[in-house]
């Protein structure tokens, strides 16, 4: 427990030290998407009964929380390959599960923090959606899935450039195709089948439904929780593989 807290507090301390840089980095891409797609292309477009801007905000929350949770992988890689601080964790009497839990919690914290930032930007743009328990729960689950995946993959990669490759091939396509910018159910059926394999599609669905105040579809929550648990277990096993 104390080992987990030490890992988590270290990540929070670094987040605090880089607060303004982090704030800027977390808000740049959602702000650009909001301007380009929300105010630019989406002006006057409606998705069902909602304006495109209302549709877009929960999508941006899903996308940004995924990216911020996954960004914990970069932090771990910097600790491993540049500063060699990972050795300090490996040589400490802490269990692998403490290490993984601490890092995953840090990823979830980043996801929640980036969500709060988007909601602030949205509020300033005049868009207010429902921020109920299910909304935050879905964001946290999304963070859990991608932070667990990030910790696991960070243990497998051999260099920082491998990590960038994973982001380019998996995270970036998912960011665009996971129901963030357009409704998945307007796509051809075969595309919909493929997109339903993406965890972000389910996260977007759950976050958007909660944001619009619709009754939650628990299957999405369950799926995210299961997937997160699988990635978490894998991360736990892969920490050992990071030893030489």
């Amino acid at each position, binding site marked *: 427990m*104390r080992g987990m807290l030490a890992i988590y507090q270290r990540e929070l*301390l670094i987040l605090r030290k880089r607060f303004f840089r982090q704030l800027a980095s977390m808000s740049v891409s959602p702000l650009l998407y909001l301007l380009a797609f929300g105010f630019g292309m989406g002006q006057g477009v409606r998705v069902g009964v909602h304006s495109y801007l209302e549709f877009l905000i929960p999508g941006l929350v899903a996308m940004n929380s995924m990216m911020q949770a996954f960004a914990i992988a970069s932090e771990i890689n910097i600790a491993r390959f540049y500063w*060699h601080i990972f*050795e300090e964790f490996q040589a400490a009497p802490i269990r692998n599960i403490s290490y993984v839990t601490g890092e995953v919690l840090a990823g979830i914290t980043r996801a929640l923090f980036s969500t709060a930032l988007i909601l602030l930007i949205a509020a300033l743009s005049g868009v207010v959606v429902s921020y109920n328990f299910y909304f935050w729960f879905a964001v946290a689950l999304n963070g859990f899935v991608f932070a667990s995946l990030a910790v696991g993959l960070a243990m497998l990669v051999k260099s920082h450039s491998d990590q960038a490759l994973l982001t380019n091939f998996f995270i970036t396509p998912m960011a665009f195709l996971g129901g963030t910018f357009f409704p998945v159910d307007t796509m051809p059926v075969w595309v919909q089948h493929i997109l339903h394999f993406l965890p972000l599609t389910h996260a977007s669905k759950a976050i958007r439904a909660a944001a619009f105040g619709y009754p939650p579809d628990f299957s999405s929550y369950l799926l995210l929780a299961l997937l997160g648990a699988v990635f978490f277990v894998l991360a736990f096993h892969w920490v050992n593989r990071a030893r030489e």
Partner: protein
Amino acid sequence: MIRFENLRKRYKQVEALKGVSLQVGEGELFSYLGPNGSGKTTTIKILTGLAVPSAGDAWLHGFHVEKESLQAKRQCGLVSQNINLDNELTVGENLHLHGKLFQMPRKERVQRICELLEYVEIADRMDSPVKSLSGGMKKRVMIARALMHSPRILFLDEPTTGLDPAIRRRIWSLVKSIQRSGATIFLTTHYIEEAEFLADRVAFLNEGTIVTLDTPQNLMEGLGTWALDRVADGGMETLFFRDREEANRHIAAHEGSFSLRHVNLEDVFISLTGKKVMT
């Protein structure tokens, strides 16, 4: 006490350790001497839990490093070859993090940090960011960090590499004083004079095998007391003599350019392996 038996480590095609066995007594300052790539760091990585042995067993104060890894890790502190401080944090924050990882209560951490920073003579840099420190200061912070949880064994992996001679001497006296406090020290180095000055016993490691093990004095006396270097046929030839007179008689009887000096551990290593330690 450190003990390992038949320790082997293979990295793909390379066998870094070829079945080494060793025992280091409590309170001993033991030096592992060898050229780069001889397996020194690999041994330390296995003993401190950073690497998994391909075969063999190791114990730290009776705790098996693989089967009782948490207890084994509590016994030791590690000063790595690379600077591995958290660059974004201050000196104090780095030490606090270490203390937290070793489950030290806050009050104890605060007290220990003050003591240790005094001990390594950088008490005034507690709130300085690590990135603002010189290389020598960073090494001293790493030593302080490794001592935070009062380990019974301290592993020093080439602690003075890249440091200037004055800082190196300062770290040597620090290492000696740590040993006087009762800790067992396992030091790897490729600096001959470091091992000669510090070590109670020395093991020479070459290509993953221990080639000899004894006190520096015994190892050097095995060759003689005086070494006579002579440049011959474009290469260097070294002859060893029990006393100075014998060496002088040799110089008088032969032509050429000679240089007389005391035998050192480098001579021992070369005589055993045909290589220099510093490669």
